[in-house]
């Protein structure tokens, strides 16, 4: 897919584990893994908002468009 999820990069920068982030944004670790591995087909605004709040970043830091 042309949309790349850079969540793992931002998480590494913030030094936060998957379990910790999952707990903070109130989603399961399995769903966070789907998001991190780029398997997700869509992301809710509420989830994106929670991630941005937890990681103190912008949506553009997490999502990136790369033409195929």
């Amino acid at each position, binding site marked *: 897919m042309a949309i790349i999820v850079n969540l793992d990069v931002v998480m590494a920068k913030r030094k936060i584990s998957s379990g910790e982030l999952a707990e903070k944004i109130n*989603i399961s670790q399995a*769903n*966070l893994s*789907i998001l991190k591995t780029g398997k*997700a*087909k*869509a*992301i809710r605004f509420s*989830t994106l908002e929670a991630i941005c709040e937890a990681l103190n970043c912008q949506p553009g830091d997490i999502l990136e468009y790369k033409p195929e």
Partner: protein
Amino acid sequence: MWSKKRSLLLSKWVTLLFTLLLAVALVAAPYIAQKFIQASANAHQWQFPLFLLSAYSGGAVAATILVLLYCLLYNIGVGQVFIQKNVSYLRGISWLCILGGVIALASAFYYLPWGIVAAAAAFIGLIVRVVKNVIAAAIALKEENDYTI
């Protein structure tokens, strides 16, 4: 009290009952065909082997449909409704109905009323195909929903 579980159980039992009836009908096919020829004003003795050929080839198709139907009901019973395997089962049932229709259509050349069976089988095949399309679309929707985080 009537429940979804009991409804499914009823469907399974009816499928098994039809399987039993089919087995009995196939075993007794020569007797039934003979009696039918004797009772019918339009059927003739020379058609006897053709009736048996239609019965056995149609019976094989019907048996396969019943097996696929039971597999489908089993999957529904274990909670696996929107899976690709069920779409495959429905596709198989649909094509087998069409095949049954073709057999009946060919049989209509020696005994015209088989044409009604051919039309009915093709129509059921069409209905099953539409149901298959619905399930395939539902799987796509479910997948999208499952992967929306």
